[in-house]
C-alpha cells in the first residue's frame, strides 16, 4: 500500500460538525415536545415546514455557488436554524411568515456572508427580528395553551392547524390565540403587576404552560452541557445577569417589575440561553469573553423587556451582543502559558 505523507496529528476524535449539530437538534426535542403538548401542532408544523424550506434553499444556494451539495447539507446547520426559528415563531403564524424568515435566515444572514462559520449574526435571530418588525400582528398572536380551556386535549386539531397556517381559516384560530405573558406584561397600561394578573386571570391560569416549556428547554440545555457541545459560561452568565437585574428592580419596585422567576420562565429566555446565545459562530470565543457575552445578553433582555417597545427581547439582545462579540474577543484573550499578562486588543 502506498504510504502517504500528511501532517500530524494522526489521531482524531470521532465526530464532525454534523454530529455536533445533530446533538443540538436532539436537545431541542424536549422543548419541541412541550410546545406541541401545550400549544398544539402548530410548532411541529412550523418546524417541519421550515426545515423543508431551509434544506431546499440551502441546497439551491450551494449549488449556485458550485459547491458539493451533500457535503454542505450534512452539516445540518440549516436544519438547526430552521428548527430554532420554528420554535420561536408563534405556532399559528401563516406559512409565508416562515418562508420569509427562512429566506432571510439562510440566504441573507448566512449564505451571503459566506456560509456556515462566516456569519456574524445568528441567522435564526436575524430572521426573527425582521419578522417581528415587519409583521407585528402575526408575530404577536400566540396560541392559547390547552390548560386554559380546562378540558385536556382541546388544542386546535391537526387539520385546523394546517388550514390555519396554510389556508385562511381565521375564526377557528382566533379562538385559540392570545397574547403571551410578556406581551401582556408589556401592554398592561397603568396596572401594577399584581393588578395585571388579576386582570388577566386566564393568563394567570395558563402561565404554567410557559414554565413547562422553559423547563423543557432547560433540560435540553443541560443535555448539551453534558455532551460538552458548549461550555457553561454563556448560558449561566446570561441567566445570572438576567436574574440579578430583575431581582434588583423587583425588590426596589415590586409592583412595577415582575419577579425574576417570571423573567426566567417566560418568553424565549431558556431557548435563548441554551440554544441561541450559545451559537458558537456568532458568540465570543474565550471563556472570559463568553461570560461577558452572556451577561450582556441578560442585561439587554431585561432592559428591552422592561423599557423597550417589544415584549420579548432575546432576539434583539443576541443580535446586539453578536455585534459586540469581535470586540469582546479582542479584550478577553486568555493569558497564555508563560505570559505574565493576557494580550489585549489587536495589533
Amino acid at each position, binding site marked *: 500500500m502506498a504510504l502517504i505523507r500528511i*501532517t500530524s496529528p494522526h489521531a482524531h476524535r470521532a465526530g464532525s460538525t454534523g454530529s455536533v449539530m445533530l446533538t443540538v437538534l436532539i436537545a431541542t426535542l424536549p422543548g419541541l415536545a412541550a410546545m406541541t403538548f401545550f400549544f398544539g401542532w402548530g410548532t411541529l408544523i412550523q418546524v417541519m415546514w421550515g426545515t423543508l424550506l431551509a434544506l431546499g434553499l440551502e441546497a439551491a444556494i450551494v449549488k449556485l*455557488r*458550485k*459547491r*458539493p451539495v451533500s*457535503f*454542505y447539507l450534512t452539516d445540518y446547520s440549516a436544519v438547526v436554524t430552521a428548527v430554532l426559528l420554528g420554535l420561536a415563531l408563534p405556532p399559528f403564524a401563516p406559512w409565508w411568515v416562515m418562508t420569509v424568515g427562512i429566506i432571510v435566515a439562510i440566504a441573507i444572514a448566512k449564505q451571503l456572508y*459566506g*456560509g456556515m*462559520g*462566516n456569519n456574524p449574526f445568528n441567522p435564526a435571530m436575524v430572521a426573527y427580528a425582521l419578522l417581528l418588525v415587519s409583521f407585528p400582528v402575526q408575530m404577536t398572536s400566540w396560541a392559547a395553551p390547552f390548560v386554559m380551556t380546562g378540558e385536556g386535549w382541546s388544542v386546535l386539531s391537526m387539520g385546523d392547524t394546517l388550514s390555519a397556517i396554510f389556508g385562511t381559516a381565521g375564526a377557528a384560530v382566533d379562538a385559540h390565540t392570545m397574547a403571551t405573558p410578556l406581551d401582556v406584561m408589556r401592554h398592561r397600561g397603568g396596572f401594577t403587576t399584581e393588578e395585571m394578573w388579576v386582570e388577566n386571570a386566564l393568563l394567570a391560569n395558563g402561565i404554567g404552560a410557559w414554565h413547562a416549556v422553559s423547563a423543557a428547554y432547560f433540560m435540553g440545555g443541560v443535555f448539551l452541557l453534558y455532551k460538552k457541545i458548549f461550555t457553561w459560561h454563556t448560558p449561566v452568565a446570561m441567566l445570572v445577569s438576567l436574574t440579578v437585574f430583575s431581582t434588583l428592580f423587583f425588590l426596589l419596585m415590586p409592583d412595577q417589575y415582575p419577579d425574576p422567576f417570571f423573567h426566567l420562565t417566560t418568553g424565549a429566555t431558556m431557548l435563548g440561553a441554551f440554544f441561541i446565545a450559545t451559537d458558537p459562530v456568532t458568540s465570543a470565543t474565550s471563556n472570559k469573553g463568553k461570560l461577558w457575552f452572556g451577561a450582556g445578553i441578560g442585561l439587554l433582555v431585561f432592559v428591552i423587556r422592561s423599557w423597550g417597545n417589544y415584549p420579548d427581547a432575546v432576539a434583539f439582545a443576541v443580535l446586539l451582543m453578536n455585534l459586540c462579540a469581535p470586540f469582546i474577543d479582542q479584550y478577553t484573550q486568555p493569558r497564555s502559558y508563560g505570559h505574565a499578562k493576557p494580550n489585549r486588543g489587536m495589533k
Partner: protein
Amino acid sequence: MSAVLIAVLVLLGLGLVFGILLGYSSIRFKVEGNPLVDQVDSLLPQTQCGQCGHPGCRPYAEAIVNNEEAINKCPPGGQSTIEALADLLDVEATPLDSEHGEEQIKKVAYIREDECIGCTKCIQACPVDAILGAAKQMHTVIVSECTGCDLCVEPCPVDCIDMLPIEPTLNSWQWPVPKSGVELIATDRHPGIAQEADA
C-alpha cells in the same frame, strides 16, 4: 436677541477652546520629518533593482508617499509587500503590475568563476557590494549579501552570471499552507478549486 448672543458666544468659546487644544497638540505631538517615507522604505525589499522604474527603493518609497506612484510595482517584494504597503497607507491592495515584472522565487547570483575575466563591471553594478573581486581577478558573489536584484547580469560582458533559485534545505523547508478544503467562499479568487474538490 440675547439668545442669539449667547449662541454666538458659546460657539466662539468652543472654537477658542478647541483651537487652543489643537494648537497645543500640534506642538506637543509634533512629528519630525516625514516618517512615512521611512516606513514605506522599510517595507520594500531593498534590492535596489529599479524594476519599479525608480533608481532604488527609497526613491520609489518617496514616490509612493507623494502619491506619484502605485504600490504595486515591486516584483521582488511581491504580493506580501503590496499588502503590507496597502495596510500601512490604508489603500486598496492591488495585484502586482506585470509591466514591471513578475513575482519570482528568490534567487541569488552565481558567477561561473572559470569564465569570469575580472572586468569588475558587475562589482560596479551591485547596489549592495555583494560581489568580491578585483580587476583581472576572478569575482565571486557573497551569497548571504546578494539580494537577487540581477543588476549584475546585464553588464557582464561574458555572460558568466547566473541567477539561481535558492535551493530549499532541511532548515529552510517549510510546511505549505494547507490545501483549502471545500469551505472556500464565493469570494475566492481561484474558481477552479471548488471543482477540483468536487472531483
